[in-house]
């Protein structure tokens, strides 16, 4: 009982300190009502993709933003998560919970293995070795002919005992629940002693070592957790897309996850979700905008997105979360001046 009360207390302060995140999650819960009345069912699909990408980016953010480890191969874990579902279905296993358990196990042990090997290096070498492992896995699935190889394999939506994912909105709320659960979990992890140590390692690794802690252990554990979160995103992604191909783990996908985090705000809880919203909205609207100006080139929206990305890197330090925090801080100082 006491434990439960502590939990509630922690959750309350956690929610208060991460208003933007929980506002977004609440908005996602209410979003289907909006699409229903506005008669825009297509946007439910976009929202699901935002949430899935948001989950994966949140996982990456744990190592990238909080731990300061620039992993350039996290799309591989998303892909592995999705392939775990596809391959277990291929062998007749249809239970969705087992799929997720399977994805967790495989991504966790792969994360442990890759993390253990890659975290011996740092800097550019770490970026490259994570990329190398991701490429290895990418080519591994490209050449697995019995699972579709290059063309990928189609997947049925998983069966979750009482929840039939083919009913409308069931998948939406399953993804939403995963998002809320993972956000809560990450909130606790980051506020915990482990999370504080991880952030301390980012700012001064040798100091943590001098305090008698082994930074490598913390890094590996955070790497495994982030791999597992990406795996969950991938497993749900398989049900959403009803298809998986090696394209999901292409190295540009890893780049996209990093873009999402930088857009939203590195090392913040809400950043990845905010970044995912902006990223996918840009992906939807840039072609439309470009189509208005130059109809023949609507497909080439990347020509705007590339420079935009460079601008964000050059001028937008801290991403969108940086801007919101600045805004909130200004509001607060106004209020205290008035009061």
């Amino acid at each position, binding site marked *: 009982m006491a434990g439960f009360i502590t939990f509630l207390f922690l959750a309350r302060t956690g929610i208060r300190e991460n208003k933007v995140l929980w506002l977004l999650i609440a908005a996602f819960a209410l979003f289907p009502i909006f699409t229903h009345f506005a008669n825009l069912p297509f946007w439910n699909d976009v929202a699901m993709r935002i949430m899935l990408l948001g989950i994966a980016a949140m996982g990456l953010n744990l190592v*990238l933003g909080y731990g300061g480890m620039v992993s350039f191969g996290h799309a591989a874990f998303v892909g592995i998560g999705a392939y775990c579902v596809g391959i277990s279905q291929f062998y007749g296993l249809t239970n969705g919970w087992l799929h997720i358990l399977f994805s967790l196990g495989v991504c966790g042990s792969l994360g442990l293995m890759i993390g253990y090997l890659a975290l011996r290096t740092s800097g550019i070498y770490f970026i490259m070795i994570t990329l190398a492992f991701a490429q290895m896995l990418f080519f591994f699935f490209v050449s697995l002919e019995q699972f579709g190889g290059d063309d990928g394999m189609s997947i049925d939506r998983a069966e979750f005992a009482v929840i039939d994912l083919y009913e409308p909105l069931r998948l939406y709320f399953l993804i939403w629940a995963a998002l809320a659960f993972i956000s809560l979990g990450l909130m606790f992890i980051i506020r915990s002693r482990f999370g504080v140590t991880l952030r301390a390692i980012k700012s001064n690794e040798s100091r943590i070592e001098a305090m008698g802690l082994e930074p490598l252990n913390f890094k590996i554990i955070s790497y495994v957790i982030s791999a597992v979160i990406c795996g969950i995103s991938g497993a749900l992604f398989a049900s959403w897309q009803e298809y998986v191909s090696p394209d999901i783990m292409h*190295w540009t996908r890893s780049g996209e996850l*990093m873009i999402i985090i930088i857009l939203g705000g590195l090392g913040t809880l809400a950043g990845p979700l905010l970044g995912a919203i902006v990223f996918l909205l840009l992906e939807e609207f840039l072609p439309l905008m470009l189509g208005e100006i130059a109809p023949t080139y609507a497909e080439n929206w990347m020509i705007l997105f*590339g420079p935009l*990305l*460079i601008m964000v890197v050059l001028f937008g330090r801290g991403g969108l979360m940086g801007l919101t925090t600045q805004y909130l801080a200004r509001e607060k100082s106004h209020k205290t001046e008035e009061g």
Partner: protein
Amino acid sequence: MTLTLFLEQLFNGLQAGVTLFLVAAGLTLILGIMDFVFLAHGAQVMIGAYAAAAITAATGNFYIGVALAIPVTFASGYFLEYLIIRHLYQRDHMDQVLATFGLILFFNEAIRIGFGPAALFSNLPPSLSGFVEILPDTPYPTFRLVVIAIGLICALAIHIFVSRTRIGAVVRAGANNPEMTAALGINIKILFRLIFATGACLAGVAGMMLGPLTAVQPGMGEPLLILSLVVIIIGGIGSVRGAFIAAIIVGLVDTLGRIFLPSLLRLFFEQATADGAGPALASMLVYILMAVVLIFRPTGLFPAKV
């Protein structure tokens, strides 16, 4: 497995290796001296290939196409550094990855808009499209031999330039300690820009030579970029000698692995297992090699910085 096949693949591997080296040579200096993660180096390969293909198509002469494309790639590298890259040296690796990722997206789309999404095929002039007998009864395409020769000449030139000339000494000094080099009165900014432009130019030459061998299409430089990153990591960041040796190793491992690994596996496993695992293992081989090198020598085989 006959001797002819083996020799042919050996030359193919060598050709892939020297092409890789041309891409990796500039990139290793950019990574090593400027400590800059430059992912858009693959785009320079593409720019070189397109420039050569377009000028060849316009003038009808392959040699003029290549000769004019070289200054184009040099200029593209020079202005890219001036406009964008120099603002990013002081940023962390993550920012560099993202900004240069943005550059890749931009260049790929720009090429797609300018030249269409379909691949261009450029024909070789008759003087280069024949075959040479490297051994009795073993014909080998002339152009691939020319590529190997040009690659080796470039490698030798780069080696002499870096290790025998004054500018080369400055470049090496820059790789070891940029601040100290600047303190000695070297204009490190201009040095950076020239290295960058030269690197872009070398990558462009690789693109020009690959053009007639493979298809010239948007995004063609990216597989090469990833492989040349592998080369640089294996060779040791900032080391031109390391990049050359690693490029030849990677080129040979990749080419020979693809051809011979499936049949090699067949000796030890059943046919079905070998056929299934062979191609998978072959395409992973290079990355496995890199991981193994990094685990045992975390700074590569020939680290430049002491």
